[in-house]
C-alpha cells in the first residue's frame, strides 16, 4: 500500500465518521461571529464609521453619559471634601476648633472680670458723642481716647489701650481715665472730683483692648470735666491733663437764667440781718438747684447772704402743676449768690418752673399767654354789677358768695338770691351744677364729677348757706392757668388772690361788710389768704352784708359748755 493511499483512507471520510460541523453550520457560525467581531472592533477603536452604526452610537452615548456623571459627582464630592478639610468651621468666621479660638475666648471671659459693672449697649451707642482722637503715651502702652458722651450728669469715654510689650496677667490694672479738674456751671468749688466707677472691656484685638469707662452717677451736673489717664497701676505714672470733656446738657436739663432787678429786705426770720436790703440781679433755674444772684454788698461781708438765707426756708419754687419743691439737698453760696439744692431724686425740668418766691416776694412769675376771647366775665349776667346769680331751675336762683380755687380743691358757697326773703329763694344741689374750668391755652376740664363734700350753715333767721367743696387732689389744677370758670354756663372771671396757687371770687358785699366793721364770722383777712391757702385750706368766706349780726342770731354754746351748764 502506498503512503498516499494510507492517508486518503484515513482522512477521506472524516466528515462522515465524526460529528464535525457541516458547511451550513460553519458558514452560519462564521457570519455570526464575524458580525460580533466587527462590533467589538468598532467599539474598541472608535472608528470613523461609528455614525453609521446605531448600536455603537447608543453604546457610546451611554458610555459617555456614565463617564460624565461619574466625573461631575466626583467634582462635587471633592468640593465638599475640600470645604470640610480646608475651610474653618464657621462661627462668625472664626475657626472654633482651633486652639487659638479657645484661648481668645478665655481671655475675653477673663477680661470681663475687669469690673462687675457692665455698661449698657444704649450707653455704648455713639449717638450724641464728641470725637476726641487724642493719645497718651507711656513706656510700653498707648492709650487713645476715641470719643466721649457727656450730658452733664453721666460721662462715658471710649478709648483703646495698646500694649507694645507683653500683656499683664491682671487685666484689672489696665490704664483708666481719671478726673483732673471739673467745673460747675455756678462756679462752685468742687469738694471732690468724681471718679470713673464703671470700666468695661468691649472687645480685644490682639494687643489692643477697646474699653468704656463711665462716671455714674454724677450727682451734680458738671459743665466740664478734665480727663487724664491713670496708668499708675502698671508702671506708676499717670498722664497729665489730656482733654476737657464739655457737657452737652439736654434741653430738659439746660438752665434758665432770668435777669432781675429787685430789692428784697430781709425779714425778722433772717435775724440778725433783718432789715438789710439786698439787690437781686439774676435767677438761675437748674435741674437740681435754684440760684439767686446778688450784687455784692460790702457792708455785710462775704458770708452774709448764705448766713442770712440758709436754713430759713425762705425760697419757694412752684412748678406748673402746682407742686412746690422741697429743698433739702443743702445750701451753698458766697457773697454774690445763694444756691438751694434739690435732692438727687427730685430733679426738675427748669422749663416747668412757673413761680419763684424769696421771703414771700415774687422774683419769677412765668408769663402765660391768655386767651382774651374767652376769659372775659360778662357782668350783664348778673342782676347787679357785682353779684353773680346761678340758675338752679327748678329750684330758682342762688347767689354765688365765694369761689376759691387751689391746686387741691374748688370751694363754692351759695346763699339764697332773695335778700328780702331770706328763707325763700332757691337752693343749690350738687347734682344741679355743671362746673367747667377754661384754661388760657384753650383747654377745658369739667370737675362736676370730682369727689365733693356738701355743707350747710343755717342762720338764726332761717337763711341757709351751702358750701360745696370739690376735691381736686387726684387731678390737681394750676390756678394761675385758669382763665375763668363757668357754673351752669355762667362765666366767672376770677382774679389773683395774692397767693401763688389760689384764685378767688368774692361777692360784692364782702368788702362792704369788711369796711362796716361788723362781725365777720369765719372771715379771713385778705392779707393772710396766701399763707392760708398755702396750707391747702379754705381761703376765704364772705357773708352777705344783709346778713348782719343781730339779736336774731342764736349763739349756741359749745356742747361741752352746755353740758357743764346743765349737767
Amino acid at each position, binding site marked *: *500500500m*502506498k*503512503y*498516499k493511499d*494510507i*492517508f*486518503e*483512507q*484515513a*482522512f*477521506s471520510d*472524516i*466528515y462522515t*465518521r*465524526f*460529528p*464535525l*460541523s457541516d*458547511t*451550513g453550520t*460553519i*458558514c452560519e*457560525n*462564521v*457570519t455570526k*461571529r*464575524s458580525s460580533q*467581531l*466587527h462590533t467589538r472592533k468598532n467599539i474598541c477603536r472608535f472608528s470613523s464609521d461609528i455614525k453609521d452604526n446605531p448600536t455603537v452610537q447608543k453604546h457610546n452615548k451611554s458610555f459617555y453619559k456614565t463617564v460624565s456623571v461619574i466625573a461631575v459627582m466626583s467634582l462635587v464630592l471633592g468640593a465638599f471634601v475640600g470645604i470640610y478639610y480646608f475651610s474653618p468651621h464657621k462661627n462668625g468666621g472664626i475657626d472654633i476648633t482651633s486652639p487659638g479660638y479657645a484661648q481668645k475666648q478665655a481671655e475675653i471671659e477673663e477680661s470681663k472680670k475687669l469690673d462687675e459693672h457692665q455698661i449698657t449697649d444704649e450707653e455704648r451707642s455713639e449717638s450724641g458723642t464728641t470725637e476726641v482722637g487724642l493719645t497718651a503715651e507711656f513706656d510700653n502702652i498707648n492709650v487713645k481716647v476715641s470719643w466721649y458722651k457727656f450730658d452733664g450728669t453721666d460721662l462715658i469715654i471710649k478709648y483703646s489701650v495698646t500694649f507694645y510689650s507683653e500683656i499683664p496677667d491682671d487685666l484689672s490694672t489696665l490704664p483708666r481715665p481719671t478726673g483732673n479738674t471739673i467745673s460747675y456751671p455756678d462756679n462752685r468749688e468742687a469738694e471732690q472730683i468724681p471718679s470713673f466707677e464703671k470700666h468695661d472691656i468691649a472687645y480685644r484685638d490682639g494687643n489692643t483692648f477697646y474699653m468704656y469707662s463711665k462716671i455714674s452717677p454724677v450727682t451734680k451736673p458738671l459743665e466740664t470735666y478734665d480727663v487724664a489717664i491713670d496708668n499708675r497701676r502698671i508702671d506708676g505714672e499717670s498722664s497729665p491733663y489730656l482733654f476737657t470733656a464739655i457737657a452737652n446738657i439736654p434741653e430738659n436739663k439746660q438752665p434758665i437764667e432770668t435777669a432781675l432787678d429787685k430789692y428784697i429786705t430781709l425779714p425778722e426770720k433772717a435775724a440778725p440781718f433783718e432789715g438789710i436790703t439786698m439787690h437781686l440781679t439774676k435767677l438761675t433755674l437748674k435741674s437740681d438747684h435754684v440760684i439767686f444772684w446778688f450784687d455784692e454788698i460790702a457792708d455785710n461781708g462775704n458770708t452774709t447772704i448764705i448766713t442770712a438765707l440758709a436754713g430759713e426756708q425762705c425760697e419757694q419754687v412752684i412748678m406748673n402743676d402746682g407742686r412746690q419743691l422741697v429743698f433739702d439737698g443743702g445750701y451753698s453760696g458766697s457773697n454774690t449768690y445763694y444756691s438751694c439744692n434739690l435732692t438727687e431724686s427730685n430733679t426738675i425740668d427748669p422749663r416747668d418752673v412757673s413761680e419763684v418766691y424769696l421771703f414771700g416776694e415774687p422774683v419769677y412769675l412765668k408769663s402765660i399767654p391768655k386767651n382774651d376771647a374767652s376769659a372775659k366775665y360778662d357782668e350783664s349776667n348778673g342782676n347787679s354789677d357785682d353779684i353773680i346769680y346761678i340758675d338752679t331751675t327748678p329750684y330758682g336762683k342762688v347767689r354765688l358768695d365765694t369761689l376759691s380755687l387751689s391746686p387741691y380743691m374748688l370751694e363754692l358757697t351759695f346763699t339764697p338770691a332773695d335778700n328780702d326773703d331770706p328763707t325763700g329763694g332757691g337752693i343749690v344741689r350738687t347734682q344741679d351744677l355743671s362746673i367747667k374750668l377754661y384754661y388760657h391755652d384753650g383747654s377745658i376740664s369739667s370737675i362736676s364729677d370730682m369727689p365733693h363734700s356738701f355743707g350747710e350753715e343755717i342762720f338764726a333767721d332761717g337763711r341757709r348757706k351751702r358750701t360745696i367743696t370739690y376735691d381736686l387732689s387726684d387731678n390737681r389744677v394750676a390756678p394761675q392757668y385758669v382763665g375763668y370758670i363757668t357754673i351752669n354756663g355762667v362765666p366767672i372771671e376770677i382774679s389773683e388772690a395774692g397767693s401763688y396757687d389760689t384764685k378767688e371770687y368774692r361777692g360784692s358785699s364782702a368788702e362792704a361788710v369788711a369796711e362796716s366793721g361788723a362781725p365777720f364770722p369765719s372771715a379771713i383777712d385778705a392779707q393772710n389768704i396766701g399763707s392760708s391757702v398755702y396750707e391747702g385750706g379754705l381761703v376765704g368766706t364772705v357773708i352777705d352784708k344783709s346778713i348782719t349780726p343781730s339779736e336774731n342770731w342764736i349763739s349756741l354754746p359749745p356742747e361741752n359748755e352746755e353740758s357743764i351748764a346743765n349737767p
Partner: protein
Amino acid sequence: MTANELERYVDLYKQSVCATAMCIVKNISDADDVTQEVFLRLYTYEGNFASDEHVKAWLLRCTVNRSRDILRSHWYKFSQPLSAAEKISHTDRTDDMLPLVMKLSRKSRFAMYLHYYEGYSVSEIAAMSGLSESAIKSRLARGREQLRRLLNNERIDDDEV
C-alpha cells in the same frame, strides 16, 4: 467576501482544513473549532486571492498557525484531553488507517499528510510551515519509517512520536 463565496470555499476546503488541524491537534473537537476559526478569518480577510489554490494554501497556512496557537495555549496544556483522540486511535474498522496515522509523530504526520494527501511538494510544505526543505524531508523520511514499522506491528517509542 460574500456569504456565497464563503459557502463555496467552506464546501471545497473544509475537509482539508479539518484534516490538517486534526493532524496537528490530534483532537476532533479542536479540529472542528480550528476549522471554523480559519474560515472566519477568511471571511473577514480583506486581501485578494489569485486563485482557489491560493485560497487553499492561505487556509492551510492559517490552519497550521491556528492549530499551533491551540497547542501553545495555556488551556490546552493544563486540561485533560478528551477521548476523541482515543476514538480516532481505536475504531471498529479493521481497515481504518486513521488510528495508525495518529500514532505517527505530530511533526511527521503533518508533513506526510500535506505531502501524500494534499499533494504539496517539499518546497511548498516548507514555505507553508516556515521550515526548511531539509527539515521537511527529514520529517517525511522519519514518518515513512514510523508508518512502516506500525504497519509491521512494531512498537514506536514515545520519543519518536
